[in-house]
């Protein structure tokens, strides 16, 4: 049963969706609080290279993951300082982060190569289907479960963590005061301030949290899905996440659905490619497919409520 096409595609969709959801949660929270971060692409890339470098240097995958999270958070902190504390333009600052990340990751990669760390050693990368603590036979049994086996247990550990984080984020947003505050920060920061909430501190915190998540998502790409790094390996994924956040209407549930849908398309297209469709259709079409899909999704979505009212505006606004 687990060989059926639909299961294979579904499992691949989950694998593809994980980094999108992870980075998307962070961006959703930041945008809900009013901060638009187009530098998410740069944060992903930084997570990629930091995760890889950390794992390669230490020989341990967990250090790589930790490095990615820390570096992502630090870079996001720089962005937060420039946009929230110094109140500079968010879009330009985000593009600057992207420039920094491209340059920095290229440099780090060359330096790493120069020192001989071109590839990860065997246990410096994560493998699929690892649930910490279980014996190998138990894990194999879990993986063979019909349907949920490939979807849930034959994934990288981070997939489970992502699902947990998504569920927690949803619960926090809808059932706790933190969620109410986040919602209010993007729609009426003046009202928040009047109620004694430290608007800037919250925004900085959320942006840093988003940076940590993006860093982890980047690490997923370099020390899990592939065990390597190449410059610009995120290939615009961060921008796709921006589109998915909008398409999900800034809700966690919508985001997860959008990412899974995107993952299905991604899985289908790689499946079709391997079936020989690339003889007929040039590979550049597949290359551009994520962006075409994202653009179409944005174009066809119903123009309903358009997100946090003061998204992208610094606070306090000059008057």
């Amino acid at each position, binding site marked *: 049963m687990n060989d059926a096409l639909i299961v294979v595609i579904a499992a691949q969709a989950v694998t593809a969706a994980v980094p999108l959801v992870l980075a998307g949660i962070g961006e959703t929270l930041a945008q809900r609080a009013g901060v638009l971060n*187009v530098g998410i692409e740069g944060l992903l890339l930084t997570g990629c290279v930091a995760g890889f470098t950390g794992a390669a240097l230490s020989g341990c995958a967990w250090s790589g993951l930790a490095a990615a999270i820390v570096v992502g958070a630090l870079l996001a902190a720089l962005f937060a300082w420039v946009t929230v504390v110094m109140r500079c333009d968010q879009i330009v600052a985000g593009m600057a982060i992207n420039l920094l990340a491209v340059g920095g990751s290229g440099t780090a990669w060359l*330096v790493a190569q120069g020192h001989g760390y071109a590839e990860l050693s065997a246990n410096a990368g994560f493998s699929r289907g690892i649930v910490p603590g279980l014996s190998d036979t138990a894990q194999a049994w879990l993986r063979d479960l019909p349907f949920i086996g490939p979807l849930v247990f034959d994934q990288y550990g981070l997939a489970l963590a992502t699902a947990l984080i998504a569920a927690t984020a949803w619960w926090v947003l809808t059932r706790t005061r933190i969620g109410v505050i986040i919602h209010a920060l993007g729609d009426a920061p003046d009202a928040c301030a009047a109620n004694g909430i430290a608007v800037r501190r919250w925004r900085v915190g959320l942006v840093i949290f988003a940076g940590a998540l993006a860093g982890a998502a980047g690490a997923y790409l370099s020390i899990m899905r592939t065990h390597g790094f190449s410059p610009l390996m995120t290939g615009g994924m961060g921008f796709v996440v921006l589109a998915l956040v909008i398409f999900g209407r800034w809700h966690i549930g919508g985001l997860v659905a959008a990412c899974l849908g995107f993952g299905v398309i991604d899985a289908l297209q790689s499946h079709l490619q391997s079936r020989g469709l690339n003889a007929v259709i040039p590979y550049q079409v597949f290359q551009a497919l994520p962006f075409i899909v994202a653009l179409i999704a944005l*174009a066809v979505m119903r123009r309903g409520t358009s997100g946090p009212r003061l998204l992208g505006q610094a606070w306090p606004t000059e008057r």
Partner: protein
Amino acid sequence: MRRWLVGSGEFVIAIGAIVAVIIVVLTGLALLGHPPLTVLTTWFQGAAGSGTRFALSLQEAGPLLLTGLAAAVAFRGGVWNIGAEGQFLIGAVTMVAFGTVLLIPGPGWFSLPVALVLSTITGAAWALLATGLERWRGVPVVLSTILLNFIAIAVVGMLVQGPLHDPTTTAPQTALLPEHVRLPVLVDGTKLHLGVLVAALIAIALWLGLKRTTIGFEVQVVGLNPDAARLLGMPVGARQVLVMAVSGGLAGFAGAAQVAGVTGMLSGSPISYGYAGIAVAMLGRLHPLGILVAALFLGMLSTGASGLERRLAIPHDLGDVVQGLLVLAVLVAGGISARRALRPQAEGT
């Protein structure tokens, strides 16, 4: 965006930011074992140590100037065109198409300008796709222009390997442009071409346009406060379309000039002047003359960086890092200065 255009301290801000970033970078390199003085002299030698090197810097400054102007025109008009990267490529591929396959009849002094104009138009059209998507489907321009960049890369890639491919080689590149549709070289022995001079003239024209024409004034008002502009009866939508068309056109022209002046063809290797244009525009404080200087500076930065790579094995990706830091420094300095300058009087005065 509102805060960029204030006062005459703009020059000071840019200089201050550059100095601050240079100090940071030199310190970082010093910690990695490269003495600052060596770095500076090597860099300078690479950027302007000889006539040839300086000509190379100018040549690099050309496309940066144009994409910088493209970004500045858009931002001034309140339009977030982050798509210069893609518009550049579309202009470049148009130039190749009309230079090699879809030949324009007539002598060089006719067909070259015509091809350049057509490339400008396709660049503008690619930009206007985003405007249309925002007008009719509400897709934010900042995101659609970025997505269109990646789509442009794919489109151009297909054309380069398809109809425009050079039949005489297996390498992924187009045929070479014939001599008569190449931009003439200004200085023998270099690749410094007429396009760079034209770019400088365009900068001056844009400066005059923004400062001294009614349309330029309207563009600024629309960019700073579209609501007030609408109430005052200004044609807000039309100005935004104009600004986007000019911006995309400049980027397209930049791509065409790069092909017609420097490379002679398009290949699979990535060219990236679009995103750098944003850095140029910010460093130049969105002022065409400032951008002229900023483009020269960043051009020198680039050629100097390849000198550093050759001589001191410092990866030239550092140039991107410097660009990013420059933008952040300029943003922060500009924000502080603008806030100080725009502080209101107390009531009752």
